[in-house]
């Protein structure tokens, strides 16, 4: 079975081959079939390639490795391996409560209509600041973390609903009046400033 990435490369290769043929022998376009060939090679296929390529880039931008490829994100990547279940991102990452290949995106996407587009827009802003501005030190979220992102998975889950604290504060949690992270309940998140004092867990060694 051919992989999607290989399919993209085949599409690009086919496009490039046809264009090369036209560049080397433009006289081919003198007849009707040549004109159709020019239309396909210079317009239809490149548009298709751009759509496929853009879609691939969008998918790729959700990957954990993509987010962590910037040097500034390196400690945040390490915090996913902290050997302490009180570290919320580490507990989610190590127990596969989130897809580990899309760990950053899963928790930092807005779970609303067009939330994905907003996340991409924020990503573009990160890139702009990284290359043309001055990144914040330490970096922090633009807006406080919304409970909605936690509740997207946890609301209705037995472990969440049966907790006496969650039951007592249910409405306040759902309406975002009491923050999951900053109200003192789950306040150890990435905590990158304390990473030199913790142990790390990098998975079970492969046999």
């Amino acid at each position, binding site marked *: 079975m051919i992989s999607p990435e290989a399919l993209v490369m085949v599409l690009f290769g086919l496009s490039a081959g046809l264009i090369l043929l036209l560049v080397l022998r433009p006289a081919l376009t003198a007849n009707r079939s040549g004109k159709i060939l020019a239309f396909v090679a210079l317009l239809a296929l490149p548009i298709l*390639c*751009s759509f496929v*390529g853009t879609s691939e880039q969008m998918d790729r931008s959700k990957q954990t490795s993509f987010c962590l490829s910037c040097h500034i994100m390196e400690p945040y990547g390490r915090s996913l391996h902290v050997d302490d279940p009180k570290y919320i991102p580490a507990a989610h990452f190590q127990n596969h409560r989130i897809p580990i290949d899309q760990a950053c995106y899963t928790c930092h996407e807005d779970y609303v209509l067009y939330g994905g587009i907003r996340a991409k827009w924020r990503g573009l802003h990160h890139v702009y600041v990284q290359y043309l501005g001055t990144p914040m030190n330490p970096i922090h979220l633009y807006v406080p973390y919304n409970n909605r992102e936690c509740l997207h998975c946890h609301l209705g889950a037995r472990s969440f609903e049966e907790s006496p604290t969650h039951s007592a504060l249910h409405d306040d949690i759902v309406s975002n009046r009491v923050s999951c992270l900053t109200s003192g309940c789950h306040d150890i998140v990435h905590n990158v400033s304390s990473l030199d004092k913790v142990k790390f867990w990098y998975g079970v060694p492969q046999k």
Partner: protein
Amino acid sequence: MTSQSPSQSPMNRRLRVAGIFVLLGLLVEVVALRWVHPAAFLVFAFIGIPLLLLGMAIYLYSLVSLRSSADGNDPAASYEKPVA
């Protein structure tokens, strides 16, 4: 009036230029797709796609200009007859 060789006609020249730009755009896009980094997205979006669009615009302009010269009763000036 001097006769032009097929490869020197304005239409063919524009097609060739358009092809080169589209080809360059595709090459940039392929390189960007092989590289997982935020900068790859920038290269893809701000170099690859504009090169591609420029090539397509030149191609479309060549079609429009061909039609214009045909309206001026001088189609041979921009497009040569097919060689048998």
